[in-house]
């Protein structure tokens, strides 16, 4: 079944958002797919082939028995473009469900990041102090560096990166956003 329900104009006579709106919105989509060979290439190819944006993308098998993967895509576009993206995703044969978590109700979004920060003396102490404030864990340390593990919204991770930059930030690895709708 093409499971494009809430918020999809193709199923509803009324779309209360401005159809001609030029406002660029950011939407988080959860796409449940068969974990078959090439499925990620199909999804990415759809975005590049039709000129859509990918801000963030995560994918992993979430049902090992059923071989289902969950792809979380954060994308941007005007309201009609977002509708097209969802409909185009729904066309793909291995796609079972497309959920627009931005439209369907409140959702939690989390991202994990690793930060390598090198420094000595006060800088090092300041980095550690800020990491505590952000509830980041130290997962590796040498006399001259830390690797922090931090989880949170992309905004929180951006904020942490800004603070670490003058304190000897060397490298960042981010997972991209994983998201679930709130409630049962």
């Amino acid at each position, binding site marked *: 079944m093409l499971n494009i329900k809430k918020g999809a104009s*193709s199923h509803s006579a009324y779309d209360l958002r401005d159809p001609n709106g030029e406002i660029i919105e950011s939407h988080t989509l959860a796409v449940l797919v068969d974990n078959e060979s*090439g499925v990620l290439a199909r999804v990415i190819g759809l975005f590049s082939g039709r000129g859509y944006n990918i801000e963030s993308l995560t994918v992993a098998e979430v049902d090992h028995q059923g071989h289902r993967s969950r792809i979380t895509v954060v994308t941007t576009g005007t309201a009609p473009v977002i509708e*097209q993206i969802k409909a185009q995703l729904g066309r793909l044969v291995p796609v079972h469900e497309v959920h627009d978590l931005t439209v369907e109700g409140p959702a939690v979004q989390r991202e994990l990041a690793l930060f390598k920060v090198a420094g000595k003396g006060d800088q090092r102490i300041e980095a550690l102090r800020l990491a505590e404030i952000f509830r980041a864990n130290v997962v590796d340390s040498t006399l001259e560096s830390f690797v922090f593990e931090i989880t949170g919204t992309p905004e929180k991770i951006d904020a942490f990166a800004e603070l670490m930059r003058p304190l000897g930030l060397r490298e960042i690895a981010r997972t991209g956003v994983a998201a679930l709708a709130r409630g049962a």
Partner: protein
Amino acid sequence: MTQMSGAKMVVQALRDQGVEVVFGYPGGAVLPIYDEIFQQNEIKHILVRHEQGAVHMAEGYARSTGKPGVVLVTSGPGATNAVTGLTDALLDSIPLVVLSGQVPTFLIGTDGFQEADTVGITRACTKHNWLVKDTAKLAETIHNGFHVATSGRPGPVLIDIPKDVQFATADYVEPTASKPRHYAPTVKGDPAMIERMVEMIETAERPVFYTGGGVINSGPRASELLRELSEATGFPVTSTLMGLGAYPASGKLWLGMLGMHGTYEANLVMHGCDAMFNIGARFDDRITGRVADFSPGSKKVHIDIEASSINKIIRVDVPILGDVANVLEDVLALWKQRGSRVNRKAVAKWWGQIRDWQAIRCLDYKPSQKTIKPQYALERLEALTRGRDRYITTEVGQHQMWAAQYLHFDQPNRWMTSGGLGTMGYGLPASIGVQVAHPEALVINVAGEASWLMNMQEMGTAMQFRAPVKQFILNNERLGMVRQWQDLLHGQRYSHSWSESLPDFVKLAEAFGCKGIRCDNPADLDDAIMEMLAYDGPVIFDCLVEKHENCFPMIPSGKPHNEMLLGEAETQGVIGAKGAALV
């Protein structure tokens, strides 16, 4: 469960899917399958001369029968040669199952001989594709391939089969024993939306049915229901290029084709209507012209099986996701149940307006005693073949638009043309595919000489399999549509748009062993066409036509429907730079 080799499984699965004909070309990576084909007689194999030809033949077969077309090609170049045909079928929603050979699984990724990343290359030009690495999954994948190709919005699928998978043995899986597939597009329309459509029919003052290829794809029942609905309402009907024949051209409600080279009346009806009923069309850019000015005063209904087609280009008021036949059935049932009536007075007034537009006679052209006008050639072809069991294919360009304007189709599945992709070289192989499906019918490919040369090697296929296809080439020694655009918006600088060093088509016909006819005199044309029709075998008809004829009416790119050019209109400087970019 029966144990068999992968190669045998392919043939068994095709048989179980009811396949009668395969269009293909052998090569190293499909030899085991060809060996199985050799040892049976149920499935006919048509040996093509180039894999692109195989895919277009399968398209012609599919579009004229409603059944999926099947293609078999080898790995590497065999598969890459199929890419244009796959893209063509994707854009025109033609159900195809293409089987390609692949290097053995242990060689994949080593740049082996005739290795190409076929599923990678064809991912963007198929509805879905598979690389089968395990013989145990082969039969099921093929059954699934047929399901995906033919359900919902039809389209091409490709199944890539490594050579070792063809040799290995496993249990054959019957179509019925295949796992249930989640892929099941919505076919039944939302009753609330159907009710709104019926209400719109009841109140419409200036209505139009704008129909498309979806009516054809939905099957013959959809065309019957469209006719029933049109008769019940008395609303005017127009169609896209892909939908010709769904409503009969001889019907009294017929306005002719719409769009860039559509009729004056059809386009003005689209522009001026207050209720537009889009039935299985997709608001293509050749139809809408300038989107911002497209049918500004109308409420719009859109019936489409594909959610992504709805609100893609034009926002509609009543979206109906579903299969055309299914939805029209429900619309008619509700129409009868409510005892509905249309607003007769208003619709009669609308028809009065339409009659005025029709009186312009937009398809009139300046006749000539000296040269054959392409329009005249097609008028004569129409007159001399009317009433026959006739199928028409075309190449792409001016001749294609003239064929759409001057040939008349009273039934669906009789008109095969490359609409979405605009593939020159489509018509000749497509005509062979149609002829294979309908051996007794009259199959004519209306061609331009330039398009025709792109796949002319397939005349060999026509000869080998005794497909008596008639190649009606409107030869203007020009790439006519390119020339027309250069004429209109590139200062008449005819950059590389003429056909130099053309072959002698009559001698070419002789070289292939078929009949060649040349005609350059309007007075001889009827006799020449009759000679073509009378010949029992393929004919290459070299019809030398007026070289500088432009195709009108025409909506210049980037213009709205009500700014169309008629034949006699002054055409220089009408298309701005912005329109030139939209060509």
